[in-house]
């Protein structure tokens, strides 16, 4: 479960002064559900998700992830979270297996538990063929699979995806979309951000429209359609942002 209350982030920039990247964001996502943060570039999606993954510290409000406070129990939060974004690259000089094993070790797992879990994930994602290959020799699709395996090694109950399909080709994007659905079906709590309307339509149980750091509208796709009297999500998005 993820719960945020008036979550905010203020950055200090030497040239631009104070920048409020996230402003009073409040939402809740239950296990077995996908919450989609829909917003344009610079709307505050990445900052919100980085705060949930405890990579950044909130300056206002609070949030709990898997029952732990992101500000005071950051390490516990990270133990229960799988975080994947296009910015989370792989160690190019390590093999697929070495990368996944490294993250298993960082999660405090012992070697036999890592091997067991890794075998299952590699078989499920059809990765055995390239498990001993260095990451810099892998195709984009293969790299995405390694990233997925890395986020799953410790079997997290919460998954956070920050624009996970950005820059990927159709096939690689489909792998990710399928993986997100699978996470929901396994009962995990899933939050993901996107600016691609079709992805949000396909995946999200609840959509939150974010702009200039503020969460402007929230609801299921059907709720948003009836509230804004539009069927097309893009039209709804434009209406919300422009109002």
């Amino acid at each position, binding site marked *: 479960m993820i719960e945020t209350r008036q979550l905010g982030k203020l950055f200090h920039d030497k040239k631009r002064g104070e920048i409020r990247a996230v402003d009073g964001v409040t939402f809740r996502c239950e296990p077995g559900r996908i919450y989609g943060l829909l917003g344009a570039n610079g709307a505050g999606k990445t900052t919100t998700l980085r705060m949930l993954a405890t990579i950044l510290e909130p300056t206002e409000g609070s949030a709990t992830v898997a029952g732990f406070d992101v500000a005071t129990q950051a390490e516990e939060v990270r133990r229960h979270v799988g975080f994947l974004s296009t910015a989370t*690259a792989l160690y190019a000089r390590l093999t697929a297996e070495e990368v996944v094993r*490294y993250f298993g070790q960082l999660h405090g797992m012992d070697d036999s538990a890592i091997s067991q879990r890794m075998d299952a994930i590699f078989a499920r994602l059809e990765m055995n063929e390239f498990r001993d290959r260095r990451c810099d020799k892998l195709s984009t699709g293969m790299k995405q699979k390694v990233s997925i395996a*890395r986020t799953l090694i410790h079997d997290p109950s919460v998954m956070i995806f920050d624009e996970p399909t950005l820059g990927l080709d159709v096939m690689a994007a489909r792998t990710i979309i399928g993986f997100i659905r699978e996470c929901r079906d396994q009962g995990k709590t899933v939050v993901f951000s996107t600016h691609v309307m079709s992805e949000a339509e396909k995946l999200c149980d609840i959509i939150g429209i974010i702009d200039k750091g503020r969460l402007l509208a929230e609801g299921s796709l059907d709720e948003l359609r009836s509230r804004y009297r539009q069927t097309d999500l893009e039209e709804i998005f434009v209406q919300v942002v422009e109002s």
Partner: protein
Amino acid sequence: MSLRNIGVVYRKELKDSLRDRRTVISMIVVPILVMPLLTIGMGALMADIIGKAKQQVPRVMVLGGGDSPQVTSQLAAAKDIEIVPARPDYADEISNKQIRAAVEIPPGFDAAVQSGQQVTVKIYDYEGDLNSELAAKNLHKFFGDYSDATVRKRLESRNLPDSLITPFDITEQNVAAPEKVTGAIIGGFVPYIVILLCMMGAMYPAIDLTAGEKERGTMETILSSPVSRLHLVIGKFLMVLTASLASAALAVTSMGVSFGIGKHMLMSMASGSDANALQLTVNFKSVLAVFGMVLPLAVLFSAALLAISLHAKSYKEAQSYISPLTIVVILPAVASVLPGVEMNAHLALIPILSTSLISKEIMTGTYHWKYIALIFASSCVYAAAALGIAVKLFQREDVLFRT
């Protein structure tokens, strides 16, 4: 503090770095090759240049001497110089290396020498040019011998013994132990190389593990794992320190081997009496002591480089920050080799310079324990401060996510 987590990060960074060509070159290849190249390579090159210069018969111009056939004929007969016709632009010819030197014989030289009058012979050369200085040396020797022969003739004509002008002989005898002699010769050079390689070895891993991670996008990946930032930075720091110390250790080992080979080469080149005088011995206890003194400096370099590189957004930016630092390290290391720079309590507090100065002393077998303790302690304080800064920076979002 979880040693397990630090160990996990350290082992991964070590494995990753050993697969990085740049790190392997700076950490292993350069330290192994630099000493043989500097000692054997440069030594062989210098020996070759000096040998060739000695073999060459230098072209020398004789200015004047038309009225002194005795000295000019002997000059013409000298085997180690070749006389070329005199020209008024002899200075330009020397500067342009057309001739190596010139000698000006004053008018009436032969007559003056006969009558016992004092005259001055002037030698012109190109200061700093090896060939010109060798030619001038040959001319000096010729006129020295000519002067001795003249004196001997005068004494003979007066029935006086040679000992009248050389009442006694002077000889030099070294009483210092061979390692002290060696220490005095190469004492400044060894710590300088070890200190420099300590920094060079740490440079690439420090950049790769910080700015390199940011550039490749793996920083966010690792920050999303449950490892604490303290454990992460210590694991990375230990890897950089390993590279720094490995460079220094390999440099010292390579230096030992090079020194042995270099000494053998010098002994075979030196003639009988010179070979006996050439008692070069390195005390490896001293080398180990120097290595010990460099330890806190390696910690300082590793932590400082890690902190500086972390500020950069990319590999290139980090390189532009760090490259000028090489001068900051070289300058005090070079200053310690300068004559007249002696250790005192104030200098003992200046990092790098103090280590370099005390290491020079240690290489000669002299141990100033008070200074050693002061330098070791102050270096440890600086190293701890740098490590503290690196740890603090790793907690700062504006540094980690600088765009």
